């Protein structure tokens, strides 16, 4: 490495694996070229990185892997614009840049001893997947109670993390996985319906439990009242926010909601915290 990267300069990484999740979502596994960087990275579940695609600039992407899974990072990227388009054309063995980790993290210390009920919609399971795997890791499994994941996508083709949902997680101790798609499909034997109504059906009890929700704004909007109806308090409901970001350092200004910068004070907020902030996100 020619330089010692600091705040605005990225560390080189090499892509070691690419999984096609859907037609427009890919998961990239990467390793730092300098293994020492990984040793000192210290990423916590819920944090994000700035990915550098040279020639295109940078994008904020959640770390979707848990630090407990190994000396690599995973990023699940939806193709939506310039940078993500170029990224989707990259191949195993190619390099890009990563700086981070940024932002706060899920309150996994406070969650100790509790059951965790995860809700994810579309590819937005990505930011909470890190916490799911953290809580399910050999190292920390005994710190948490039952781990449930309720996940929905528009169609079978839109389901991300299929092997986690169908194979890896259900086999682990004290888990329950609920998967749904919006409309019936011939080959689909599972649940059909929208996420909010499926939550109502599964009806998790609020007792000794945290609900962790990530998904498109519309899904979140209709899911929150369901949890309220089930008796969840605002500080038992945790979600992550998205704002346009450039620096991730609390300096470029654009990700503010009132006096808070989502890039340093977020992206993880409890519903109780959100209710104390301007509705400008």
């Amino acid at each position, binding site marked *: 490495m020619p330089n010692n990267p600091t705040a605005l300069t*990225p560390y080189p990484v090499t892509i070691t694996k690419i999984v096609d999740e859907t037609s427009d979502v890919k998961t990239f596994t990467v390793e730092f070229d300098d293994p020492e960087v990984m040793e000192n990275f210290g990423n916590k579940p819920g944090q994000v990185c700035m990915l550098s695609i*040279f020639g295109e600039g940078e994008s904020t992407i959640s770390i979707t892997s848990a630090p407990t899974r190994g000396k690599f990072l995973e990023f699940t990227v939806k193709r939506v614009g310039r940078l993500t388009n170029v990224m989707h054309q990259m191949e195993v063995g*190619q390099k890009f840049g990563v700086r981070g980790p940024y932002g706060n993290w899920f309150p996994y210390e406070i969650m100790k001893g509790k059951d965790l009920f995860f809700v994810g919609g579309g590819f937005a399971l990505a930011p909470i997947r890190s916490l799911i795997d953290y809580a399910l890791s050999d190292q920390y499994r005994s710190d948490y109670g039952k781990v449930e994941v309720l996940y929905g996508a528009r169609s079978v083709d839109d389901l991300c993390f299929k092997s986690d949902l169908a194979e890896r997680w259900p086999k682990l101790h004290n888990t329950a996985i609920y998967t749904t798609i919006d409309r019936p499909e011939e080959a689909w034997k599972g649940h059909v319906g929208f996420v909010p109504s499926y939550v109502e059906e599964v009806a998790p009890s609020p007792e000794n439990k945290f609900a962790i929700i990530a998904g498109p*704004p519309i899904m979140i909007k209709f899911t929150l009242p369901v949890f309220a109806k089930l008796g969840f308090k605002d500080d038992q409901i945790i979600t992550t926010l*998205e704002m346009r970001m450039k620096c991730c350092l609390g300096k470029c200004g654009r990700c*503010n909601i009132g006096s808070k910068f989502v890039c340093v004070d977020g992206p993880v907020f409890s519903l109780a915290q959100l209710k104390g902030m301007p509705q400008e996100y």
Partner: protein
Amino acid sequence: MEARVVNKGQLPELLDKLAKDYDLIAPVQEETVVLFRKISGAADAFLEYTNSDVSPKGCFLPQNEKTFNYTYTGDSIEINKPEGAQKAVLFGARPCDIKAITTLDPVFEGEKFGDEYYSGKRENTVIIGLSCTKVLSTCFCYAFEGGPCDGTGSDLLFTEIGDKYYVEVNTEKGKALADAYSQIFSSQGAEQLAKDKEELAKKLAGEFVRKVDLTGVKELLDNNFELPYWNGDDQKKCLGCGTCTYVCPTCHCFDIFDYPTGDFTGARLRCWDSCMYPEYTLMAGGHNPRPTRKERVRNRFMHKLKYHLDRYNMVGCVGCGRCVRKCPVNIDITKIINDLKEVAQNA
């Protein structure tokens, strides 16, 4: 506090010497615009101004700044950062603009992450302020506890009194510079000039035209994000031109992007951005948390009057009056402050 005296007649000599020993940044006049840039000697400097069109914030946060050059081939990455900051002197900045720099410091130097580009320049620069000798009709620095002769944030503060400059030595950095040019910085007659300066400050304090009263404004904004006031026509006439943010010495928003220079090479740049542009918060997929002028105008003024205070316990406006002078549709922060004060009173 120590003080020195510099004969006005010796200022050219001082500036020429500084230009030789440092990167000397000073006010210059280009066409009709007064701005700050590096000069090669006293002849380039333009000190007969009251408030420059462009503030000196660019000394520390340049309008365009290269953070690194890259060479990228797909399977190799090389990153080369530009050389560190040179030793510099910022001469002739006005008190409001220097205070503004102190409000940028916690943004770039504070909290979790530093900023080597900003701090490198900040640490290597001696700031020599220049007191105002008159106030403009748009000035209102007094409203934020500033003043035309206030030395906050400067290493040395020059105040013009007759054929002399009274020089306040405010930091060790300033003292070291004054000591290094001891043949120009004398100590004789400083006591009398100190009194003269106080007189000048008192006189100028009475000359402000704009009465700005912040009573109750912060509290109002603390408790009310939604105010019918922001729906007013006056607030909605903003053109989104971004002028107010570019000229504002406390605005620090920037964009980061790549500028390819060849098939495999390019530079990463950061450049000033403006919260008044709709694209500023527009996300891929089309969602925009501040979709209309109303939200953007509100955000700018909330930032100045509340958010910056909440975060850094420092005002986000120093009353330089630039946005008041430059806005093409006369959106006026002093009017907004006074209006909000009334809203607070009637609440």
